[in-house]
């Protein structure tokens, strides 16, 4: 069974444009829906707050691993660490990697998230449970956003 996530998506935009959307902290924040305190720097922790209405109290945090210009951007994080009462820092994080490749139509983006076999997930599920109602609403919000800005 797969214990990693892989997504491949064709973007009709040049590699440098996609690189900027991924690694400029303000641009990343736009589509990822997080307000970051400052730029991404390899080896450093990036912090911010979720910008979804109703979730503005939720902190966002990731440790930037690699920034290889226009090729690879990676960070480790604790996905869905939405419960402020839980200290997620002791858990082994997952690794998120964005790989960029020039393609005929623009850019091929390959996203992977790995390391799920290392996470003690009891706590994570608790966090999910608390977020259940909001999560369903979030899906609708995103659908609306994407439909408005095709």
């Amino acid at each position, binding site marked *: *069974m797969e214990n990693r996530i892989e997504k491949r*998506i064709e973007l009709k935009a040049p590699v440098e444009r996609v690189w900027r959307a991924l690694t400029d902290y303000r641009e990343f924040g736009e*589509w990822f829906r997080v307000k970051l305190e400052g730029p991404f720097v390899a080896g450093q922790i990036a912090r911010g707050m979720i910008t979804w209405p109703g979730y503005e109290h939720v902190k966002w945090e990731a440790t930037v691993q690699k920034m290889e210009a226009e090729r690879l951007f990676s960070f480790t994080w604790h996905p869905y660490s939405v419960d402020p009462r839980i200290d997620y820092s002791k858990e082994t994080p997952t690794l998120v990697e964005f790989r960029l490749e020039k393609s005929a139509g623009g850019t091929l983006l390959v996203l992977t998230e790995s390391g799920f076999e290392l996470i003690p*997930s*009891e706590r994570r599920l*608790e966090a999910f449970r608390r977020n259940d109602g909001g999560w369903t609403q979030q899906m609708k919000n995103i659908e609306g956003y994407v439909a408005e*800005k095709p």
Partner: protein
Amino acid sequence: MSRRSLSRTLARRRAHAPVFAALGDETRLRLVAKLAGGEPRSIAQLTKGERLSRQAITKHLRLLEKVKIVHSTRAGRESRFQLDPQPIEDAREYLDLVSAEWDLALARLKAFVEG
């Protein structure tokens, strides 16, 4: 994923990480495949066709048992192992959730860079 199936996943609240770890091994995946029919099998039956010793296979089975992917029953002198598909199903649903979140985030990224 529907809200109902999400609730189901959460209601069971099993630990997924050990399940992912247990399945991250070829031998154990083969054992799970052999048990997928649902019939209880003995260690002798499960060792057949494997290059590993009976002891090694037993060790793998005990690990699968520990994370509740299989359970064993005694039939006379031998243990028989049976698959419980639920933990695997739960772990898959969890991964589906994270995966769905990425689909949405990447759709927003696409709109952002192409817009």
